[in-house]
Each structure stands twice: as structure tokens, then as C-alpha cells.
């Protein structure tokens, strides 16, 4: 569904523009979940912004099957919920095509007890789940996830991964997952692209065996160790 070929992307920095991506290329199939794994600061977030259409200044091309970008749901690293709207109102704001689906997502992600709270009252883990629910609510063809479980305690993170995997089973869509945790990548993705230290490019491609996909972080860690 997506072909990415970025020959060069620079960002302004002190002492002149800094190249964060150079010669990066990969493709994403319909309904395929791909993890982008690399050291922090290697341009992963920038890449998601470019694919999401928030950053259009780069050399290269991002090509969509059918030539127009599909519906994209983004989960930013910070939850980016409007603090003056409740969780439910935050989801309603992005105009879900089907309000019943929004309610179903609240239930699926364990957010029902929190639906009428304002985001400042939520823990980071719950706020991230609300952001995930919001992204699913628009029925995306592609989901962009930027470190959705970083800086959570291990139990909370694993819970989050598990509800995300459940949501994927019932609501098929392609996804790009940015993470620096290889075990997490192996526990969620079908395919893993290892990125180099900046400027980022793909240095290795790893396939997660079909039988091991989305079976929790322990299996993810085992697979990660086996395939690298």
C-alpha cells in the first residue's frame, strides 16, 4: 500500500542543517504490521511525520497505492489529547464514522471507567490507550504508532501491547510501529526493519515467524534473540 524512498531529509540544527535520513527505502503491504527499530534520535519520529503528511520537506518520495494517502490514524509518543475534553469527547472530536465503534473501542481498550474523565486525571498508560482508541476510531487503513509504550512500567506496557494486539485481530489495518525495543517489535510486528544510527537507513530486515506473532513480550524476546 505504501512505498517509501527517502534519499535525504535534513532538519535545521545549530551549525547548519543536519541529515537525519539518507537512502532509506522500504515498502508496506496492506494489513501488514511493520516495526521500525533503531537507536533514539535516528529520525524515526521524523519519518512517521513525513508519512503522516505533517512534514513535506524532504528529497525522495512517499508513494501510495491508488495515488492518494489512505485514512491514517496516528498515535503520537505524547498522547496529545485535548485536556479540556473528556476521553469520550476527545474521540468524538476526530469524527469517528461510526459512534457505536467509538464506544466499542472504549470497551475493548478498557477505557470505560475513564471515558468521562479529563486527560490530566489519567495515568500515562491510560492516556496512551485513549490515543490508541482515537486512532482506531477513524477506521484507519494505516496506523502510525510512535513508541506507544515507552516509559511505562513493564506490566502496564505489556497490558497495553496486549489490548493493541486484540484490537488488531478484530480491526485489520496496516501499521508502522516505531520503537527502540526489539522484543516489543517482535511481539507486535510481522516484519522488523532495523535502522542505522542517524542518518537513518534500513540495515536489516527480520521476519517474525507466523506462529510467534503477537504472543506477548516473553515470546517476543525469544524471537528477537533467535532471529538476530
Amino acid at each position: 500500500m505504501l512505498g517509501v524512498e527517502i534519499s535525504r531529509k535534513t532538519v535545521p540544527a545549530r551549525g547548519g542543517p543536519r541529515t537525519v535520513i539518507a537512502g532509506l527505502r522500504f515498502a508496506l503491504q496492506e494489513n501488514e504490521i511493520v516495526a521500525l527499530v533503531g537507536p533514539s534520535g535516528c529520525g524515526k519520529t521524523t519519518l512517521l511525520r513525513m508519512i503522516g503528511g505533517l512534514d513535506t520537506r524532504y528529497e525522495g518520495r512517499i508513494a501510495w497505492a491508488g495515488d492518494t494517502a489512505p485514512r491514517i490514524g496516528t498515535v503520537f509518543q505524547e498522547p496529545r489529547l485535548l485536556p479540556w475534553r473528556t476521553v469520550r469527547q476527545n474521540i468524538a472530536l476526530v469524527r469517528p464514522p461510526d459512534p457505536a465503534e467509538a464506544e466499542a473501542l472504549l470497551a475493548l481498550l478498557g477505557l470505560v471507567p475513564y471515558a468521562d474523565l479529563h486527560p490530566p486525571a489519567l495515568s500515562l498508560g491510560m492516556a496512551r490507550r485513549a490515543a490508541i482508541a482515537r486512532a482506531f476510531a477513524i477506521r484507519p487503513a494505516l496506523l502510525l504508532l510512535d513508541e506507544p509504550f515507552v516509559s511505562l512500567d513493564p506490566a502496564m506496557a505489556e497490558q497495553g501491547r496486549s489490548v493493541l494486539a486484540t484490537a488488531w485481530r478484530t480491526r485489520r489495518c496496516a501499521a508502522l510501529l516505531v520503537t527502540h525495543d526489539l522484543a516489543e517489535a517482535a511481539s507486535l510486528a510481522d516484519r522488523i526493519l532495523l535502522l542505522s544510527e542517524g542518518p537513518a537507513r534500513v540495515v536489516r530486515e527480520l521476519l517474525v515467524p507466523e506462529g510467534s506473532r503477537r504472543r506477548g513480550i516473553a515470546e517476543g524476546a525469544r524471537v528477537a534473540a533467535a532471529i538476530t
Partner: protein
Amino acid sequence: MGGVARLVPVLVLLACWEGAARLIGSRLFPPASTVVAALGQEAASGRLAHNLGVTMARVAAAFAVAMVLGTALGMVMGRWRRVDRALDSLLTGLLNLPALVGIVLIYVWFGLSEVTAVAAVALNKLPNTAVTVREGARALDQGLIDMAHSFRMGRGAILRHVVLPQLYPYLFGAARSGLALIWKIVLVAELLGRSDGVGFQIQVYFQLFDVTGILSYTLAFIVVVQLIEWALLQPLERRANRWR
């Protein structure tokens, strides 16, 4: 309880005023009771209502013009650095222009009329609003705006749901300080170029050295301003900040 705590100092002040004025016994320092009685007479004659009414109408008009134009200017300057650089020195100049000079020049150049009076008052408030809102526009959370763009929200929806709620504290700050400023300046504009309103009345009493008249209008004016603060501004502000 809060109401009583607020009222006590006011009553103490009134009592001190009454006592001191009776002790001194000068026509230039009338006791509170005399002022209130004069206020009653003005009210009965209908003049008080008329003068307060036209002054309030001018305040409302000047306030609306200054808030709308000042907010627009502040938003543009806060978001576009080029515009900000181009207009910044002009804005600073306008901010430091003495109110009196602005009013006199507008009257001289554009004539004595209702429109010029309101424009002169608005001109004094506008730069203040622009500076406050510019601060707010600079502090906007770009992450939330990016989020809105990523979900393909339209411009109108982004302004209404994402941008304006972030600006409310600044807009209320501008409104609060704006009213305080406009109350004062509108009287000067009336004194210089109108033939009714609280400012005009105070000028008449000044020429007659009628301190009782001056104080009675001042008192009425203060009461009205307080009522607007309590009945309008504070509830609105609470409503906008409910989620905090």
C-alpha cells in the same frame, strides 16, 4: 461567607468617610450619605440612567472593536514571525502612545462624533490586547495542532476546538485589563468631545466645583463595573476553566 468578608472593608471605608466628612464639614468633602442622596436625585430625574447608559454603550463598542481587532492582530503576530518583526516597533509605539494624544488627534483629524470617540478609545486598548494574545499564540501547543492536522480536522474546527481553548486564559486576561483601561479612557474621550455620558457629567460638575456630583457619578460607575465583573466576567472565566 466570602460575600461578607468582601463587604466588611467597604462598610468600614464608608463609615470612616461619613465620620471624617462630618467632622471636617467642608462643601468640598461631602459625607457618604449626602453623595448617596444626590445619587438618588440623579436617578429619579432619569439623567443617571441616560448618562450611564451611553457611557456603557461606548465602553461595549470600544471593547468589542479592540478585542476583535487586537485578537486578530495578536494571533497573526504570534504565529508568523515575519509579520511580528515588521509590526513589532509599530505596536510598541502604539502601546506607549499617551491615551490623551490619541484621543485629541483622532478628534482633530476625523471630527467629534460617536464613531471617532469609540475608535479613539478602542485604539488605546487594541495594542494591549494584541500583545497579550500574541503571548498566547506563541505559547500554543504545536503538538496538539499537529495532532488535529493528522486527523484531517478542518481549519474552523482546529480554531474552535484546539486553538481558542488554549487562548482563553489570555483572552480573559486581555478582557479583564481591557475593561479596566477602557472605563478610564472612555471618560476622557467623553470629557473632551461628547455632550453626554459619565465623563461629560464629571466635567460639568468639575466646572461647578460640585464634588458631591462628581462623587455620586463615580460611585454609580464603580458599582456598575463591579456588577459586570461579578455577574459576567467571573462566571464566564470559571466556565472556560472548568476542566482544570
